[in-house]
């Protein structure tokens, strides 16, 4: 009896602790939403929501900056394009690594693993030089082309395609499928969960990337959201509500995508760590 009571008390305390911690973690997000809804006169009076809601911060965001809508569309365009290109290259190369033997496969795999361990900042100076020479500085191609391949993505797809039985591919060949048809009609449909995970990871990576776009993009009409916000905090550093509105809008697309793909996401995130 006594021990049961002690266990119950311990469990209740643990549950309460976790709920309290979760509340602390969520508090900045609630504060962020609240800050976007407070008018100038209310912002110092109320820590969270004020009794009257104001949309002024959102109006300011689009009117004062006059390019924020461009920045939003730029980010959406760039992240979507990069995801599609990366998805195509990564799944195709992952398929080749998983299901074929070809000359140089071993050395190529080692080379790919080696580049995974090298921090990306190492190559930024020579890559900038190369892109300058190709005339791709201050253009989206300077972001899309070097970002078109994801070694991480290739290994992700290789892992998941390895689990597809060879008999399935053989059967398709006997039915007269070409190798590309096998990729398109068998490998891709079967890999749907991995595609979901990869799309989200890749989208978040491009959406949030800051340093390389900061180096490559100079024209403010081309800026993506993180760069636009970094400019805004310099110019409007007293306009807290407006900056928070910009931050909230910048985060929403990722949240929506996450809610759609969250199941696949966790599976994909941990696949490499647990299996490898």
């Amino acid at each position, binding site marked *: 009896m006594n021990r049961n009571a002690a266990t119950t008390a311990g469990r209740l305390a643990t549950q309460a602790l976790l709920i309290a911690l979760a509340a602390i*973690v969520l508090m900045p997000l609630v504060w962020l939403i609240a800050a976007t809804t407070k008018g100038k006169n209310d912002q110092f009076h109320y*820590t969270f929501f004020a009794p009257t809601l104001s949309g002024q911060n959102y109006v300011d965001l689009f009117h004062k900056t006059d390019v924020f809508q461009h920045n939003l569309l730029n980010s959406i365009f760039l992240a979507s394009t990069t995801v599609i290109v990366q998805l195509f290259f990564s799944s195709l190369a992952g398929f080749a690594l998983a299901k074929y033997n070809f000359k140089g496969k071993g050395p190529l795999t080692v080379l790919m693993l080696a580049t995974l*361990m090298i921090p990306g900042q190492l190559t930024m100076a020579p890559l900038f030089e190369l892109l300058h020479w190709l005339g791709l500085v201050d253009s989206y191609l300077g972001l899309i082309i070097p970002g078109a391949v994801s070694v991480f993505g290739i290994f992700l797809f290789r892992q998941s395609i390895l689990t597809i039985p060879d008999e399935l591919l053989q059967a398709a060949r006997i039915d007269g499928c070409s190798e590309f048809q096998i990729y398109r009609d068998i490998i891709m449909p079967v890999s749907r969960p991995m595609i979901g995970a990869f799309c989200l990871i890749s989208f978040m990576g491009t959406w949030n990337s*800051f340093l390389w776009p900061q180096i490559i993009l100079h024209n403010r009409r081309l800026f993506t959201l*993180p760069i636009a916000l970094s400019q805004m905090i*310099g110019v409007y550093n007293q306009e807290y509500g407006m900056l928070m509105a910009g931050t909230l809008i910048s985060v929403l697309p990722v949240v929506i995508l996450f809610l759609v793909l969250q199941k696949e996401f966790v599976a994909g995130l941990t696949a490499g760590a647990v299996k490898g």
Partner: protein
Amino acid sequence: MPSPMAGRPLQSAQAKIAIMNKPAPEKSNWFSVQHKIAPYLFIAPFLFIFLVFGCYPIVQSLRLSLYATNGPKSHVFVGLSNYRFLIGDSDFRTAVWNTLVYTFWSVFLQLPLALGLAMLLSQKWIKARGLLRMAFFSPNLMGQAFVAVLFGILYVPQYGLVNRALHPLLPKLVPLDTKWLQDANLVMPAIVLASLWMYVGFNMIYFLAALQAVDQELYEAARVDGANAWHQFLAVTVPGIKPVAVFVLVTATIGSFQLYELPYLMLNNTAGPKNAGLTIVMYLYQNGFVTGDLGLASAIGWSLALGVLVISLFQLRVTGAYKGEAA
């Protein structure tokens, strides 16, 4: 790269090759040819971009680090003086020190918290586990740049949430006008706090997955043998989650070494008071792309890569992660 994108041109390329190998134009011959060349075609688009934009710059950065440059055009060979300059430069030393301090807290504060949280959350009797897990993970949906903008304002004296929440709890220690980002001594704690908020839940996901894979019968067996909770942790949990824990340790360290957006944007596009928020990557950006010395930037890049390599190998050694494979 226009052609292989759509899929159709690739098939037509296969068709062309089939026509070129005409001698026996039956299906079986075309079929075996396209089977043989398929992996090369599949890997080719990736390989081209990987070699040109991934591998070539790595080699080139080694060469470039031996030159003094002014923008992409003017190069003067200077041998090792970029590296010599770095060793003597006090700003670089500050950057390295700050990066190491941040990495230390990432490893010794962030990861134990993530593991602890995962162990509590993996108890089957906890209610609303999915919601709690989601709550802890949610900050990670914001990229580092956006977290930085948010925290830059959360730390604003009088106005921000941090002082308003901490002041009532610790009125003496945290006055309402505590200037987190203007006081050189408070900048690093402010960065670490923001990064805890962002990354504890992220690493927790890995530990949760690892804990789920531990065989529950081992705990049962340990209990039968009279092991208490701490002994169960050492004898069952630690060996069970070790591969994942080492993975998390190494990736968290590598990630910490590359710290940039969080301090840079939190500190309003600066390195903060007395360079208290200067990191190695920030130093690289300033020298390479603000001042325009791409040679020095390459030398900084190599210093960063070597630092990451040495620390990762040390961690793998100490944790004995490669013991099984070496034997």
